[in-house]
């Protein structure tokens, strides 16, 4: 941006802010128009520079300004459902009748030589599929009886059955999936998307995270962190218990009117300071306080599922007031409907090693499947009936797969049936948002051990998600430490085989 341009831009921004803050600012529509006017003015100036080369410029005063991506994206929003702990593909989608024949036999040496596993030691036994499978719908996709509801919508999704990773521990593998590196410090995919797109709804965060299963994902908050991007792009955790967003509730004893009066006073005093200092940062702060006030209404409103009709509760299996995956899925739909760009769900408890009942492939795992089956199905159907599925990309998966061998932790027989972490093949599916319906890409060998064709990895998934949002993953960059960084580093290929 030339000096002159920069000056003009500064002037425009300041005028705009002055204008906006003088208005009756609690009239949301007015402000919305102000924001839009500013946005269109700036895009007319092409102040961001050419996006296809140097990436975006961070505007500290309005970092969430809606922005257009590299090309018109098919998806407007993303709902990413991450089953933390890594669900077994062999009990859900990757049907391997031949594995059944090997059940209980020693694992052949050829599968063990030169391989590393997290917990398997020595020679484990093979473990046949612990579920019944059927082909579903027109596409004939294999879906096990663990997901009876989902089986009815299998025609809506594209399965990726040969996803691979090189990380066999949860934390690093989750980081790789969401930040493009197994180490800490990089921005998450939701942060990248928000950085690239801004937020459509100035009263809600652009990137929302919801967790269930009683624990955070293994990699902690870094999987929705902003890494080296400005912190404004990190995921905002919304909660279905307690305050929906931290500190959203007015303190005890302060009602809405008094809160409004106090923000009025703060902003009035700030306006006097602005007259004195002429620092545009003060105008930004004034508008942030106004937005905070509006968020205090809009966030609890969108996070309240009590008013949803009974059939919706029935469909999702939601129970208002409780923290559950089902509630979070319904919230995801509501958030997307309100213009939130990226909704990330983490459900903990999928690490079916067989160390105890809750983590057994033949007990706890089935319960986990039950807890997600209805909500996920409802999500696809509900988005569809609202005409939102075409513009909402839904992604479902874990951080790696599970072994066709039964786990023998420390070389011992386990109390329950379980499978160890497996990097060589697992299943992820995508639906909506410009993804083909009723297809499957990638295949594994006859026992589901290794990917044999159509191999994909975390970078490909990321490239595809960004592609659906309208970004060339090689060009969505951020200048840091002297070089342009991108989510997919030097990797990634858009999986065109599943793009409609």
């Amino acid at each position, binding site marked *: 941006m030339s000096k002159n341009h920069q000056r003009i831009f*500064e*002037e425009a921004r*300041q005028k705009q802010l002055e204008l906006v803050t003088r208005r009756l600012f609690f009239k949301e529509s007015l402000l919305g128009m102000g924001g839009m006017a500013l946005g269109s003015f700036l895009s007319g100036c092409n102040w961001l520079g050419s996006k296809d080369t140097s990436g975006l410029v961070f505007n*500290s005063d309005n*970092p969430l300004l809606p922005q257009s991506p590299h090309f018109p994206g098919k998806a407007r929003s993303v709902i990413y459902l991450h089953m933390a702990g890594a669900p077994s593909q062999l009990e859900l989608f990757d049907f391997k009748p031949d594995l059944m024949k090997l059940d209980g036999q020693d694992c052949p040496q050829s599968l063990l030589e030169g391989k590393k*596993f*997290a917990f398997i*030691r020595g020679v484990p036994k093979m473990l046949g599929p612990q579920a019944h499978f059927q082909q579903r719908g027109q596409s004939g996709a294999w879906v096990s009886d663990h997901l009876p509801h989902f089986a009815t919508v299998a025609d809506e999704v594209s399965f990726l059955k040969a996803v691979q990773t090189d990380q*066999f*521990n*949860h*934390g690093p593998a989750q980081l790789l999936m969401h930040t493009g590196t197994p180490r*800490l410090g990089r921005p998450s995919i939701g942060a990248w998307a928000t950085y690239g797109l801004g937020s459509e709804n100035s009263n809600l*965060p652009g990137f929302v995270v919801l*967790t269930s299963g*009683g*624990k*955070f*994902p*293994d990699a*902690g*908050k*870094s999987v929705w962190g902003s890494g080296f991007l*400005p*912190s404004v792009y990190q995921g905002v955790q919304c909660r279905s*218990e307690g305050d929906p967003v*931290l*500190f*959203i*509730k*007015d*303190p*005890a*004893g*302060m009602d809405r009117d008094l809160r409004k*009066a*106090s923000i009025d*006073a703060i902003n*009035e*005093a*700030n306006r*006097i*300071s602005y007259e*004195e*200092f*002429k620092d*545009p*940062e*003060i105008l*930004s*702060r*004034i508008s942030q306080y106004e*937005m*905070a006030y509006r968020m205090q209404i809009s966030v609890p409103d969108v996070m309240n599922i009590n008013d949803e009709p009974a059939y919706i509760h029935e469909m999702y299996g939601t129970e208002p007031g409780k923290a559950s995956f089902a509630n979070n899925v319904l919230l995801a739909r509501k958030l997307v409907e309100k213009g939130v760009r990226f909704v990330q769900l983490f459900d903990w408890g999928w690490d079916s090693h067989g160390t105890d009942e809750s983590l057994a492939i033949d007990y706890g795992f089935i319960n986990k499947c039950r807890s997600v089956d209805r909500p996920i199905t409802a999500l696809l159907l509900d988005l569809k009936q609202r005409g939102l599925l075409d513009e909402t990309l839904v992604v479902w998966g874990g951080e790696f797969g599970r072994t066709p061998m039964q786990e023998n932790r420390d*070389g011992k*027989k386990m109390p329950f049936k379980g499978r160890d*972490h497996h990097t060589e093949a697992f299943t992820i599916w995508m639906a909506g948002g410009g993804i083909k319906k009723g297809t499957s890409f990638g295949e594994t060998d006859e026992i589901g051990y290794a990917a044999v064709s159509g191999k994909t990895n975390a970078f490909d998934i990321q490239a595809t998600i960004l592609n659906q949002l309208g970004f060339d993953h090689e060009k969505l960059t951020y200048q840091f*430490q*002297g*070089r342009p960084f991108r989510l997919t580093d030097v990797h990634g290929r858009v999986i065109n085989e599943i793009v409609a």
Partner: protein
Amino acid sequence: MRLPRLNTLTWIILFLVIVATGFSFVISSNTIDYNTEVKPIFNKNCITCHGGVKRQSGFSLLFRSEALAINKSGKAAIIPGDPSNSELIRRLTLKDPEERMPYKHPPLSDDEINTLTKWIKQGATWGDHWAYVPVKETPVPKVDNWFFGTTGGGSWVKNDIDHFIYETMQENDLQPSERADKAILLRRLSLDITGLPASTKLATFYLADKRNNAYEKLIDTLLSSPHYGEKWASMWMDLARYADTKGYERDDWRSIWRYRDWLIKAFNENKPYNEFLKEQLAGDLLPNPSDAQYIATAFHRNTMTNDEGGTDNEEFRTAAVIDRVNTTWETIMGTTFACVQCHSHPFDPFRQEEYYQFMAFFNNTRDEDTYDDYPLLKEYHQEDSVKFLQLKHWLHTTAPTRENELIKFVKTGQPAINSLVADKLVNSALTDTKWLVLRNISEARIPHIDFEGHSQLLYKYKSWKPGGKWMIHLDKPDGPIVANVSVADSKGSWKLSTIPLPVMHGAHDLYFTYQNAQLTNAEETGMQFDWFFITDPFPGKGIAGYDSASKYFTDLLFSRKATITPVMVENPSALFRNTQIFERGNWLVKGKAVKPGVPRSLGALPKNAPANRMGLAMWVTDEKNPLTARTIVNRIWEQFFGQGIAETLEDLGTQGIQPTHKELLDHLAWKLMYTYEWDLKKLMKEILLSATYQQDARMTKNAIEKDPFNKYYARGPRVRLSAEQIRDQALMVSGLLCEKMYGPGVFPYQPEGIWMSPWNGATWKQSDSCDQYRRALYTYWKRSAPYPSMISFDGTSREVCTARRIRTNTPLQSLTTLNDSAFIEAAQFFAIKMQVTGAKTISEQISKGYELAFYKQITKEKLMVFEKLYNNAFTRFKTDKEKMKLMAGIHQQKQDPSTAALVVVAGALMNLDEFLTKN
């Protein structure tokens, strides 16, 4: 001849045109400068394909030797002195798009091609990037106006800094601002030096101090405040990625707060910066290191430890070593070195193998991603500190030759061999990949142990049943038996034991076999090991005092009356690790072996420097190191002005943002080393005494137009406070602040449900009494779930080094200061403070509150705003007793509508932009 009549303006324009033409002629005939004219063209257009990462056609422009070499086409791209035969120029000017460079990109402009042509003609000399050349003494520019002199800079400048600043101000047609008023300077200085607003006492004194040097005296007072160390430690903690947990999945507790306290003390003692760095990098390698010098090395033990089950410990040890390399560069030398892991630096003169040479300095410490974070320094308390002294004394008098070895072992537990190095496991295992366990009829190997003639094995183990038979075979599973042990049942708790060893030399593998008929099945664990220590029997047997001394030795190894801190301990030669290049950065694919070394482009190790971390520390702190002094000067400048002289604190290289005042940076860096001898307080004082710093921060229309980001410093700094300052200020102004220093992390109020790490039952238990109101730097820092208000105000998770926080302005920040209980409580106390000042009327109380926060009178206009808010609140609370009580807070006798309304006003004052900002 009669000249045409022209008006004055035209004459001036004409004159300027002539001057400008003359200038451009002068410039064009001058030597082309590689750094400012050539390198930017290469970096922008060429180096992506012909640099450190890619070398299309074998051609690279990174180093001169590469650029002049004959490349794959058989031609030299650059022939010095001969542009017309240089392939580079030919390829830039071709018409055929397949041949013309840059390939598939727009051609270079004629100007650019001319520059390159001229440069080759002049000999194609390479220049070094400014930041990679040792700092030279930089003369101070004169500010006297020689042209159209109006108000001269002479009356404005206060010290050398101002000369540099005034010069660029003039170049940009800017005038300095007036000095800010006393109240503003008081608050600015206090926040900048101590991170806290000034106490009322200090404020009263300073505002009444009419001496000429009152401002300087104030600086001295603040620099000698113990809060100074707290403020600068909290800055350094971001760089050192200080946290109270280990990171990754379980993110369990770690005891490393002694390092934070070391930082505070080091700053307060004004430890010279070179020593400050040397102790952190290599304190353990100093002669007879003190506890404090060991603790300083915890700087690089702030790397993460992965406790997740099933992790490869060597992988995460390696990750920690790599993190140490990257952090050293980013923190101390303002350079991004991380990308050299996989390939030579794309833009800067660093080769890939140099990354691993540098890594070799850090690759020989004893830490191995163990669960307990070994090595741990133990600082003994109470009776154990007495035992320690008695043991030391006894060894000193009875067995002086063993004193160092045994004392080091008692203090650091080193050099021990961790059981997690075991391999060749047969019915044995590394349980949770952390400890070796043996079962009935099992085998395991501890590879490559050098006995160095020692005759005893001391080991830490657990067992659950009697009857265990443990044998050690030499070099083969059925090799000679060197030990045959009937394992005593430790009933599931850790125990120490010893076995005698035959005298052996050189490296051997130890094969363990184990049997225990009492174990009911093949999978039951019989025995678990933590570590092994190759030593000799405790000395002095038969001498009086032997029994108690040897008992003290064992007691101290298990002491619970000790503060532990992970520290660096170097491998003894027997455990030396070789360092190899990781091919394309993959730690599993090892290439050529390398020795410790520093990048050639940045000089060499000082002559007397050993090839270990101490040598590295000597190189880093050598005056010839081009980066160390520049980096810290830049960082301190950023703390005061909100931006560095070079904005990219993390990268002073060719891709970083170029400094706005390079000469000033060099001038101060030189002065820090040679005049101030690395004394940071002196450097700070010089900056704070400059007229530049003392300017008013008010902006004029002219200034906003010409310099929206204050890069030329024609006004004072105006920057939002840091997360830490925002909390600390609220506590200070409300009177809640607990000024207690040091100690383990504390737990102020935090909402429910923030901590939910898997496999970790730890809960946030709110501290009581004073500890709830400690300064932010004492707040327990959990990496996977940091304290929420810190994060909203751009604090970081401290998983890796953060060289620079990027400031944002978001509604979540507003919600935090409006609604977080910590801030509400502060408002409640602040309101009462306003009342007890003796001010009678509400107006006086509000005015008093404003004065407490800003040290100056509130304006009428603002007072009216808050009176209105007060009246509004008062009317409500008069009719709603319930709400009134909730708002007024915990003070029973103060539960009245007036107090409650004043709390609302106090809360508003604490949300003002001028409160959250340094003005």
